[in-house]
C-alpha cells in the first residue's frame, strides 16, 4: 500500500518538460512515459494475454515473436522478474507469468549468434597451475571511467568474477578502489541489461547488423563519409581511438563528436587558455604542505581521485604530537567530501570562485587586484600568505565544474608559486582526441537539424537523456536517417535509435585504457559475455574495412605496433602486461607547460550580483551522471553528506530554506533513521520546469541551490527508473553548471526521502573525538577525556584471555573522508542484500558498515538542519565508519537466548546464522546499533544472474536472522589455512578486510592486536586511540584515532 503511495510521489517528482508532464499525469507512476515517436504502445500482462488468447502452437510462438520484438515486452518480462529484494515483486497472475517466462526463454534461441572465442587470461598473483576449486584467483584489468581508468584485481571463483579489489601496481588505484568501482560488478550481473541487438525494436542477429553497417559504410564511402557521424563519451582507449581515427581517414568528411555530461570542459579549455594547447594536469597532493581547492572535489571525484586521496591521507597521519600535517583550504558552493575534510572551508557561490581565483592571482603577483567582501578577503589573504610561505610545496586545485578561466588562473597561480614540477605537473592529454564537449555536441545537433547526418553511431552514453535541454537532441535525432546506439541498457536514447547494440561490460571484453597519468592498461575479460553483447571495438570495426575482427586482435594489433614487435611478439611481454595490469613505460612524462597567460586572454568576467540565487548542477555522488542509476548498491548507498538514498533532492542552504520555509518532517515510521518528509518545489530554469524534493544541507553557500544530476531516469531499468527528479530537464548549454535566471516556487506537496542518518550532533557523548592540531599538541590525551573505561581488574570475575591472535581494528578518523568505498566493498564481499526505498524508510537497511556524519559545534532548535541557526552555515563536518565493534564484553552475546552470537577464541564476536531464531534482543542491547536484521526475505533467491554475483565463502542469509560485520572472518580463515599449511604464524597485513582494502585513504587497519609489532597494535598504542562510549566497558576491539584538524590560528580567532 505504501508502495503505491511512493509511486504517486515519485510521479510528482517526474522531471519533465511541459509537453511530457501531461503524459505523466495520465500514466501510472511506475511506468515509462508513453511517447508518440515509439510505434508500439506500452504493454501490460493484460494486453499480452489479449494478443495470445486463442493462439496455439506455431501461431502462439509467432505472436510471441512479434511481441518479443517489442521493447516494452522485454521491459515487461524484466519487470516481472523477481528483483534484488522480494519486496519489490509486484503481484502478478503467476500462470500467465510462467507462460511468458517460457516465451522469453524461447527468445534466447531466436537470435542465433555465436560466442566470441575465449582467449586465455593470465592470473595475477597465483600461477595458473590448474585451478584449485574453491580457491579464488585474481586477475588484473582496468575499469575505464571518464578521462581515467582504475586498475583492479578481479576475484574470480571458478570463472565467475565476484569482487573487485584495487591493483597496487596501477597508478589510479594504488591498491584501493572507490564506491563506484566496487559497485560496477553489480552492473555486470544486472538482470535489466540489454541482451540482444535490435532494429526498430525487433530482435536482429549481430550478422544482420554487420551487413547493415557495411552497406552504410559503402554508402558513406561514396560521399567520402559526409553525413557519417560518431558520438562517444571521453575516450582514453588507444585502440578505440586508433580505430576511430582510421575510420576518419577512410571517410575524410566523417566527424567524431564527444559528449560527457558530468565532467566539464573547464579543465580542458583552461589548459588551452593557459598553455595554448590541450594539456593534462596531474596533481601530487602528497608533496603539498598547503592545498587550496577552488570548488574541486579532488579527493572523491575526477581523474586520479583515489590516488590523490591516498597521497593526501598520508600527509594527515599523526603518530606522535610532533608529527606535521598538511593543511587543506576549500572554497566551494556546496559541501563535498573534500570540503568536509578541509581544515578551513569557505562556502561561496560557484560563480564567486572565479572572483576568488582572480583575487588570489593578484595576491601572488599575476593579474589585477579584485575587491572582495571583508570576510572573504580576510580568509583569502590568510590563505595567500600561507601559500606564498610554502612556495613550491603548495598547491591550488580548480574544480571540474569551474569555467576555463578559473583553471587558467589556477595554472598561473601554481606557476607563480613555483609549484609546477613538485606538487603539480602537466602531461600530454590522456584523452585520445581532446575536444570541447559542449561545442562538439552543439555542432552535431545543428548538423542533424540541417539534415546533414545520414548515419549516427552513438558509442555509449545516453544523449537523449543527458544532452543540454535546449539542444533538443531527440527532435533532431529523428532527422537522422540511420541511428545506431551502443549501450548496456535499452535506455532513453536506444528507444529513439534504429539500431540498438547491447554493450559488453568491461569485465566481458578485451580493450585498453589510459589512467589519469597516461599509464595504459590492457582490459581483459573475466568472463565471456553473459548475453549477446558487443564492445565499441566491434561496432567501430563493423564500419571499417575489416568488419567482425574481434577486439582481442584489435587490441593486440594496436599494441604490437605501438610498442614495437620486439617486445610484444614475445608472449611473455604481453603476458606480463596482463599479469601486472599496467603496460610499463606508458606513463606520460611531465612536460613543462609554458604559461602564456595574461589577464587580457581571459574571457570577460561578469560577477553575479550579491544575493542572486544560483542554481548549480553536480554529478550525483552515487549514480554519477545517471549511468549507475540501475545499480541497487549505489542507489541504496547513503550519500556522504545528506545520507539520502534512492533519490536526489534540490539542496538548499539552511538560511535559504528558512526564507522559503522548507521544513523537514521526521515521519514516525522510520524516523531519524529512515524517513524524512521534505517540501516539494517547482524549479523553473531556462524555460523549462522540474518538480523536486528539497533538502536543507548545512554548510552550503547561502544563495545556492544544487540540482544533482543522474536521477529521474525513465528507462534505467527496474531499479533506476522513476527515482528522484531529472535535473537535465532544466540544464541548458548556456547554464551547463551555473544558472541564475531561475525561480523556485514552493508547492504544497511533500515527498518522503529515505535518509539513514538525520540527527547530526553527538549530544555530548564520547563518540567522535576531535581537536585542533594545537590542542592536540597541548593535550595529546584529549580523546580519553570524554569517557573512561573501568580498570580491567574492577571485575569480580576473571577475564577471558586471548593468548593466540586477538583480531582488532583501528580506524583513523583523521584520514577518513567519508567516501563510502568501504560500505559498498563490504556489501559486495558479504552478499548483503538491497532492501529498497520503502524498507530503508522503515529503518531496515542492511549495511554492515555505515559511515556516520556529525557536525560539531552545530545546533538548531529542533536538532535538525531544517530550523535555522547560524552554526549551520558552515559547520565542521566529520565522518565515522562504524562496523561491528567486536566487543570483548559483548552486550549482544549475553542476552541471546540460544547462543547464536558468541565469542571466538580470537575475540571475534561470531554470528551463528543457522542457530539464530531472531529475537532481536542482541540488536536492542547493542550500544553501537551495528546489527542488521532480515525483517523480510530481503535476499533475492531466484534471479539467476545474481546467483553468479555471490561470494561463495559467505552464507547467504535468509529471512528472520540477525547479521552483522564479521571482520570478514572468511578472509581471516583463508589466510589461517595458508599459514598453517606452511606452519608459520599469520603475518601482519596478510589479512585485509574488504573495507580496509577498499579504503583509498588507508583509514582502516586490521590485524593482530596481540602482536606488538603489528600496525594495528601500534595504532592502538597511540594517544589518539579511543573507543566509542568507553564507559560502557564493552571493551570494543574496533577503536578509533581521534580526528585532528590542522587549523590556522589566524583564521580561528576572529
Amino acid at each position, binding site marked *: 500500500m505504501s508502495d503505491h503511495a511512493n509511486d504517486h510521489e515519485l510521479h510528482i517528482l517526474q522531471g519533465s518538460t511541459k509537453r511530457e508532464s501531461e503524459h505523466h499525469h495520465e500514466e501510472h507512476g511506475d511506468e515509462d512515459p508513453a511517447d508518440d515517436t515509439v510505434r508500439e504502445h506500452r504493454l501490460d500482462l493484460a494486453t499480452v494475454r489479449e494478443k495470445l488468447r486463442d493462439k496455439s502452437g506455431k501461431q502462439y510462438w509467432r505472436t510471441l515473436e512479434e511481441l518479443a520484438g517489442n521493447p516494452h515486452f522485454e521491459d515487461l518480462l524484466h519487470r516481472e522478474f523477481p528483483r534484488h529484494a522480494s519486496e519489490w515483486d509486484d503481484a502478478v497472475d503467476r500462470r500467465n507469468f510462467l507462460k511468458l517466462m517460457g516465451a522469453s526463454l524461447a527468445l534466447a534461441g531466436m537470435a542465433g549468434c555465436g560466442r566470441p572465442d575465449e582467449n586465455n587470461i593470465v592470473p595475477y598473483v597465483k600461477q595458473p597451475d590448474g585451478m584449485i576449486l574453491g580457491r579464488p584467483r585474481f586477475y588484473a584489468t582496468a575499469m575505464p571511467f571518464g578521462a581515467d581508468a582504475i586498475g583492479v584485481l578481479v576475484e574470480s571463483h571458478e570463472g565467475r568474477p565476484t569482487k573487485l579489489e584495487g591493483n597496487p601496481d596501477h597508478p589510479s588505484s594504488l591498491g584501493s578502489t572507490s564506491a563506484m568501482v566496487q559497485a560496477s560488478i553489480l552492473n555486470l550481473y544486472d538482470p535489466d541489461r540489454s541482451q540482444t541487438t535490435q532494429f526498430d525494436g525487433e530482435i536482429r542477429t549481430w550478422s544482420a547488423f554487420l551487413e547493415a553497417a557495411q552497406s552504410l559504410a559503402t554508402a558513406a564511402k561514396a560521399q567520402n563519409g559526409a553525413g557519417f557521424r560518431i558520438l562517444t563519451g571521453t575516450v582514453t582507449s588507444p585502440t578505440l581511438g586508433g580505430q576511430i581515427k582510421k575510420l576518419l581517414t577512410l571517410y575524410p568528411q566523417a566527424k567524431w563528436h564527444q559528449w560527457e555530461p558530468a565532467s566539464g570542459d573547464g579543465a580542458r579549455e583552461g589548459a588551452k587558455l593557459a598553455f595554448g594547447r590541450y594539456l593534462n594536469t596531474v596533481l601530487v597532493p602528497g608533496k603539498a604542505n598547503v592545498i587550496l581547492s577552488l570548488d574541486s572535489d579532488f579527493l572523491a571525484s575526477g581523474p586520479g581521485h583515489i590516488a590523490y586521496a591516498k597521497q593526501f591521507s598520508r600527509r594527515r597521519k599523526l603518530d606522535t604530537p610532533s608529527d606535521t600535517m598538511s593543511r587543506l583550504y576549500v572554497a566551494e558552493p556546496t559541501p563535498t567530501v573534500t570540503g568536509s575534510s578541509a581544515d578551513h572551508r569557505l562556502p561561496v557561490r560557484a560563480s564567486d570562485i572565479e572572483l576568488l581565483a582572480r583575487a588570489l592571482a593578484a595576491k601572488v603577483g599575476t593579474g589585477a587586484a579584485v575587491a572582495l567582501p571583508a570576510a572573504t578577503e580576510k580568509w583569502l589573504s590568510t590563505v595567500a600568505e600561507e601559500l606564498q610561505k610554502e612556495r613550491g610545496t603548495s598547491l591550488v586545485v580548480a574544480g571540474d565544474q569551474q569555467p576555463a578561466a578559473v583553471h587558467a588562473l589556477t595554472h598561473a597561480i601554481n606557476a607563480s608559486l613555483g609549484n609546477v614540477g613538485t606538487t603539480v605537473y602537466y602531461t600530454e592529454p590522456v584523452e585520445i582526441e581532446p575536444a570541447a564537449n559542449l561545442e562538439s555536441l552543439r555542432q552535431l545537433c545543428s548538423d542533424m537539424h540541417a539534415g546533414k547526418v545520414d548515419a549516427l553511431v552513438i558509442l555509449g552514453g545516453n544523449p537523449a537523456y543527458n544532452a543540454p535541454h535546449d539542444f533538443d537532441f531527440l527532435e533532431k535525432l529523428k532527422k537522422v536517417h540511420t541511428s545506431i546506439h551502443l549501450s548496456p541498457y535499452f535506455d532513453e536514447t536506444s528507444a529513439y535509435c534504429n539500431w540498438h547494440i547491447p554493450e559488453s561490460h568491461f569485465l566481458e571484453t578485451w580493450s585498453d585504457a589510459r589512467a589519469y597519468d597516461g599509464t595504459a592498461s590492457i582490459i581483459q575479460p573475466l568472463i565471456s559475455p553473459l548475453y549477446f553483447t558487443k564492445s565499441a571495438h566491434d561496432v567501430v570495426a563493423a564500419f571499417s574495412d575489416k568488419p567482425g575482427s574481434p577486439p582481442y586482435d584489435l587490441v593486440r594489433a594496436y599494441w604490437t605496433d605501438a610498442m614495437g614487435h620486439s617486445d610484444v611478439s614475445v608472449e611473455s611481454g604481453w603476458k606480463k602486461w596482463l599479469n601486472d595490469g599496467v603496460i610499463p613505460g606508458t606513463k606520460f612524462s611531465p612536460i613543462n607547460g609554458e604559461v602564456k597567460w595574461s589577464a587580457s586572454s581571459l574571457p570577460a568576467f561578469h560577477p553575479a550580483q550579491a544575493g542572486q540565487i544560483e542554481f548549480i548542477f553536480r554529478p550525483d555522488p552515487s549514480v554519477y551522471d545517471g549511468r549507475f542509476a540501475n545499480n541497487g548498491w549505489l542507489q541504496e548507498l547513503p550519500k556522504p553528506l545528506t545520507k539520502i538514498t534512492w533519490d536526489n533532492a534540490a539542496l538548499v542552504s539552511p538560511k535559504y530554506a528558512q526564507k522559503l520555509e522548507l521544513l523537514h518532517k*521526521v*515521519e*514516525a*515510521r*522510520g*524516523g*531519524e*533513521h*529512515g524517513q524524512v518528509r521534505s517540501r516539494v518545489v517547482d524549479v523553473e530554469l531556462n524555460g523549462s520546469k522540474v518538480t523536486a524534493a528539497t533538502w536543507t544541507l548545512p554548510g552550503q553557500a547561502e544563495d545556492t541551490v544544487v540540482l544533482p544530476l543522474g536521477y529521474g531516469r525513465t528507462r534505467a531499468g527496474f531499479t533506476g527508473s522513476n527515482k528522484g527528479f531529472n535535473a537535465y530537464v532544466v540544464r541548458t548549454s548556456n547554464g551547463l553548471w551555473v544558472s541564475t535566471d531561475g525561480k523556485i516556487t514552493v508547492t504544497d506537496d511533500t515527498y518522503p526521502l529515505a535518509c539513514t*542518518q538525520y*540527527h547530526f*550532533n*553527538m*549530544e555530548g*557523548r564520547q*563518540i567522535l573525538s576531535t581537536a585542533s592540531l594545537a590542542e592536540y599538541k597541548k593535550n595529546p590525551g584529549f580523546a580519553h577525556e570524554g569517557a573512561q573505561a573501568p580498570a580491567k581488574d574492577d571485575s569480580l570475575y576473571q577475564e577471558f584471555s586471548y593468548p593466540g591472535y586477538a583480531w582488532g581494528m583501528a580506524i583513523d578518523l583523521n584520514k577518513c573522508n567519508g567516501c563510502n568505498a568501504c560500505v559498498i566493498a563490504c556489501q559486495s564481499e558479504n552478499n548483503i542484500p538491497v532492501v529498497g526505498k520503502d*524498507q530503508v524508510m*522503515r*529503518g*531496515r537497511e542492511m549495511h554492515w558498515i*555505515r559511515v*556516520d*556524519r*556529525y557536525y560539531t559545534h552545530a545546533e538548531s532548535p529542533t536538532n535538525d538542519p531544517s530550523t535555522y541557526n547560524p552554526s549551520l552555515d558552515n559547520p565542521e563536518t566529520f565522518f*565515522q565508519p*562504524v562496523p561491528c565493534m567486536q566487543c570483548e564484553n559483548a*552486550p549482544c552475546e*549475553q*542476552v*541471546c*537466548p*540460544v*547462543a547464536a552470537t558468541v565469542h571466538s577464541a580470537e575475540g571475534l564476536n561470531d554470528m551463528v546464522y543457522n*542457530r*539464530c*531464531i*531472531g*529475537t*532481536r*534482543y542482541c*540488536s*536492542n*542491547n547493542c*550500544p*553501537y*546499533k551495528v*546489527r*542488521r*536484521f*532480515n*525483517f*523480510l*526475505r530481503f535476499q533475492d533467491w531466484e534471479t539467476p544472474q545474481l546467483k553468479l554475483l555471490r561470494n561463495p565463502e559467505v552464507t547467504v542469509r535468509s*529471512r*528472520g*536472522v*540477525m547479521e552483522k560485520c564479521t571482520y570478514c572472518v572468511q578472509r581471516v580463515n583463508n589466510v589461517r589455512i595458508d599459514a598453517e599449511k606452511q606452519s608459520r604464524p599469520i603475518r601482519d597485513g596478510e589479512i585485509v578486510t574488504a573495507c580496509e582494502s577498499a579504503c583509498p585513504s588507508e583509514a582502516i587497519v586490521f590485524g593482530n592486536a596481540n602482536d606488538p609489532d603489528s600496525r594495528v597494535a601500534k595504532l592502538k598504542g597511540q594517544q589518539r586511540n579511543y573507543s*566509542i*562510549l568507553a564507559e*560502557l566497558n564493552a571493551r570494543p576491539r574496533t577503536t578509533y584515532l581521534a580526528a585532528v584538524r590542522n587549523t590556522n590560528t589566524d583564521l580561528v580567532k576572529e
Partner: protein
Amino acid sequence: MSTSEIPLNSQARYEPDPVLEPGHTYASVTDKISSIVLTRPLGLGWLAGFTLVFSIVMVLFASLAWLITKGVGIWGINIPIGWGFAIVNFVWWIGIGHAGTLISAILYLLNQKWRTSINRFAEAMTLFAVACAGIFPLIHTGRPWMAYYMFPYPSTMGVWPQFRSPLIWDVFAVSTYGTVSLLFWYVGLLPDLATLRDRAKEKWQQYIFGMLSMGWRGSAHHWHRYQSAYLLLAGLATPLVLSVHTVVSFDFSIAIVPGWHTTIFPPYFVAGAIYSGFAMVLTLCIPLRKAYKLEGFITMRHLDTMAKVMLATGEIVAYGYFVEFFMAFYSGNKFDVFLAEQRLHGPYSHFYFALILCNILTPQLLWFKKVRRNVAALFVMSLIINTGMWLERFVIVVISLTRDFMPSAWGRYSATFWDYSTFIGTLGLFVMLIFLFVRGLPAIAISEMRELVHEESHANKEHV
C-alpha cells in the same frame, strides 16, 4: 433461618455489607451456580457476543498466517526499535494474569473470606491471559518454527540454551507460571466438577464431568489431603507470581539500554501487574455479575475492596515512575538524564502524559468512597487503568529504544495494521475463552461457597 431475622443480622454486623448475600443455603448456592452451567439455555446475548469475539479470533489467525508467510517485517519494528507491540502486549497480558493468582493464592493464605466468590474466574482469567501472553514471545521471533531452540534438549548441534539470557528465564518462568496456575485452578475445580457430575441431567454431561472429577467423593480423607495440597499450592504460587513479573522485568533491567537498565523495575513491574490485573478482574466481573445475576455473590464489598487494592498498587506504580526520574538525575548518568527529558519533551511525550493521566491521576478518585461504590465509575476506571498500563509498557519498551546510545542510529516506531490486528486478535481470544468458561464451568467455587454459607450461618447464630 427465617427471612425475618436477616435484616436484624445485617444491621447487627459491623461490616457495611456482607461478602455473601444472606439467606443462602448449601443447596441454593450450589443450585444457582451450577445451573448456569447445566440447565441455563444459551441466551441470545451470549450467542451474539460469542460470534463477535469468535470472528475477532479469526482476525488473529489471519494475522498470524500472514506473519508466518511474510515475516516480522509486516510489523512496525526496525533497527533500532527491535521490539514493538509484540513485547508490549506480552508484558501487558502477563501482568493481567497476576491478579488472578494473587486473589486465589495470597488472599487464601491471608484467609480473606471475600476472595471466595471471585477467585475461580480470577484464576481462569490468569490462565487465559497467560495463554494470550504466551503467543507473543513465540511469534515475535524471526523464525518461530525454530523457537524450540530455547528449550534445553540434546540437539545434534550439541548446543544448549544460553542461560544468561533473560529470555530463557522468561521461557521457564512463563511456562512454570502457566502450569502451576492450571494445576491450582484444576485442584480448586475438582469438588465442583463432582457436584456437576452428580447434578447433571444429560448423559454426556455426566460422562464429561464424571471424567473430569476423577471420581471425587468428598470423603474426609480426600478433603484432608486436598486441603493440605491446596494450601501448599497457594504457598508456592505466591512467590511464583512475584517472581514471574520480576523475571519479565529482567528482560529490560538486565539490558544496558537507557530506560531499561534500572533496579526499580522488579517491584514496580509486580505492582503494575497487580494493578492492571485487578483492573481486568473488575472489567470482567462487573458485566458478569450483572449478566448472571450474581450480585448476591459478588457484592459491593468485593468491588470496594478491589478498588482499594488498585488504589494501593497504583500508588506504588506512581512511586516507581518517580524513582525512575529521581535515579536518572541523582545518578547523573547522561544517557538516563537524556532519556528522562526525552520522555517529557521527546517525540513521544504525549504517550507519557497519557499514561500519567491514566495510571496516576485518574485512580486518585478511588480515595472517595462514592467512586468506589459506583459500579459504572469503577468499570470505566478499570478500562482507563488497563489502557494506562498498556501505555506504560509501550513507553518502556519502545520509547527507550528510540533514543539510545548512538544518536546517529536514533529512530522512531509506528505500528502497522498487523500490529493492531494481532493485538486486538488476542483480546478476542481472551474474551472468547471467558465466554466458554462461564458457560462450561462453575464461574464461582461452589464448595467454597458452601463453606462460606456454613461460616456465615455460624456468624449469624453468634449474633442471635
